[in-house]
């Protein structure tokens, strides 16, 4: 099955992921504000039947907070990946217009790649003053280079393709060729690229939030939960540190699997 039907596997994986994501989003709807509800008689309770994953220092249910954190991560990741793909696509398109623009874009790529991702993320989040918006923009601005390189190489090749040259020879404008011939060809690349970006985006969002540059500490983001857990580590409250990270890992793994299946199928 694994070799013969990559499309079936991809569809299956897509279905499972979609179902989980829908469950995650729906859970936020059903849960309401329970991730923030405090129970002072059950502070730092270990996992049990009453408190599935235990509670934190203010008696808030960890399972509800983890779910809320994953949903936050999902939205941030989605927006960032989408924005990043758009940036990659437009810069790749600009790069193929002329040799000088191409040199400029590749200089930009080199500049971005020469600073460690996390430091660049910190600089951008700092420049934008922190918060959800800042994280989304920072992650989007730092993650496009690899995809832009792929798209640019693809575009250079496409420009030499006979139908593109014929179209140009027939006097169609650059914009028309880009819009009518090249973009449809690039959509699958963009899709896979965005899916590949997504796990990185969530991981970097969590890391940035963990360090204190990202989402505000009042939001139940995974980074915030883990930063809180750091304060209770030596007390042996292991559930605070284990479960939010495990949830994040499972989500990232799920999307990695999906993108590798899709890549094989397309």
């Amino acid at each position: 099955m694994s070799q013969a039907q990559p499309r079936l596997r991809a569809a299956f994986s897509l279905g499972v992921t979609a179902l989980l994501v829908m469950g995650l989003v729906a859970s936020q709807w059903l849960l309401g504000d329970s991730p923030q509800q405090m129970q002072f008689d059950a502070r730092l309770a270990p996992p049990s039947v009453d408190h599935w994953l235990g509670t934190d220092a203010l008696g808030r249910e960890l399972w509800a907070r983890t779910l809320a954190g994953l949903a936050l991560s999902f939205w941030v990741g989605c927006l960032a990946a989408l924005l990043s793909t758009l940036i990659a696509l437009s810069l790749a398109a600009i790069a193929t217009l002329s040799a000088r623009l191409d040199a400029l874009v590749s200089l930009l790529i080199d500049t971005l790649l020469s600073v460690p991702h996390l430091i660049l993320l910190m600089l951008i989040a700092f420049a934008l003053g922190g918060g959800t918006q800042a994280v989304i923009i920072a992650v989007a601005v730092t993650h496009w280079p690899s995809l832009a390189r792929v798209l640019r190489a693809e575009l250079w090749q496409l420009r030499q393709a006979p139908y593109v040259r014929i179209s140009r020879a027939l006097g169609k404008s650059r914009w028309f060729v880009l819009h009518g011939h090249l973009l449809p060809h690039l959509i699958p690349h963009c899709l896979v690229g965005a899916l590949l970006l997504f796990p990185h985006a969530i991981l970097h969002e969590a890391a940035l939030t963990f360090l204190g540059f990202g989402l505000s500490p009042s939001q139940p983001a995974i980074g915030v939960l883990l930063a809180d857990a750091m304060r209770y580590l030596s007390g042996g409250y292991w559930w605070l540190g284990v479960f939010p990270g495990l949830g994040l890992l499972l989500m990232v793994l799920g999307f990695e699997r999906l993108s590798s299946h899709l890549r094989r199928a397309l």
Partner: protein
Amino acid sequence: MRLIAPIAKRVARLALVLTCVALVSYGLMMASPIDPVDAYLGPQMAQVSPEQRALIAQRWGFDESVAVQFGHWLRQLVSGDLGWSHVYNQPVSEVIAQRFQRSIALLGSAWLISALVGFSLGVVAGAKEGSKLDNIISTYAFITASTPAFWLAILAVLLFSVTLGWTPTCCAGPAGALNQEVTLATRLHHLLLPVATLALLGIASITLHTRTRMLELMRSDVATHAFAQGASRLDVAWRHGLRHASVPAITLAFASLGELFGGSILIEQVFAYPGLGQATVAAGLRSDVPLLLGIALFTALFVSVGNMIADSLYGVIDPRIKASGL
């Protein structure tokens, strides 16, 4: 002449990229809504009169236009002065030098371990595709590639420091001890867990990359020919595979310095290890603009030199690339 030209080209490119980094990061700092005078004053903000604020702004040159400030900063930068860090109350270059000395032990050992272990695991997994060992190694690499670095560090602290009590939970030495009193053994003891976590994360990408290279080779004509002559899989892996896979592995090791540094920021934060990564976080959270700029430039230099070495090594190790004129 043939050797000098490409090197000169690379150095020129490096200078250009670094200038861009300086421009971009300075622009970002200037765009920040955080007022530098407020950041400098900290909690004493309320006790300072507007006249005093104006004096402070004048003293640090904040009252001039952005272009003039950038000019000042650039001129100082060229003369080797990175400015003054108000968080550590020291010149930025001294802070970076001291912190980097501590970080280099962490970074260097984690880098070496992850390169060596990652490469060997990749060769082993790739030589026997589909075997049980290959499955275990691939799954391991696949999972660690998706693991958040700081979470792994938290797990390590929970397991080895809190539950088992084998390693200390924090810092580069025992609390309260002077720098000179700390023995080498204690230092290594404190380094053990951070290095292990950082290395564990770096292994994944090199393993996966090396494995694909090995698979490529095992399916190539070279391997088929060797098999036809009666060579075993081990023979082929040893004689052809090592060489084939080593060039990309070394390149990747040098090219992944940025990622390694990013990981070290998170891990130093979890282990409270007083290295450059921790200083970066402190500088960012407490708005120490000169220090943040200095670190950004320093790490950019570090990463770019790594990339440059990666590109140059290609030619040294693989004679075919040198022949085609770099």
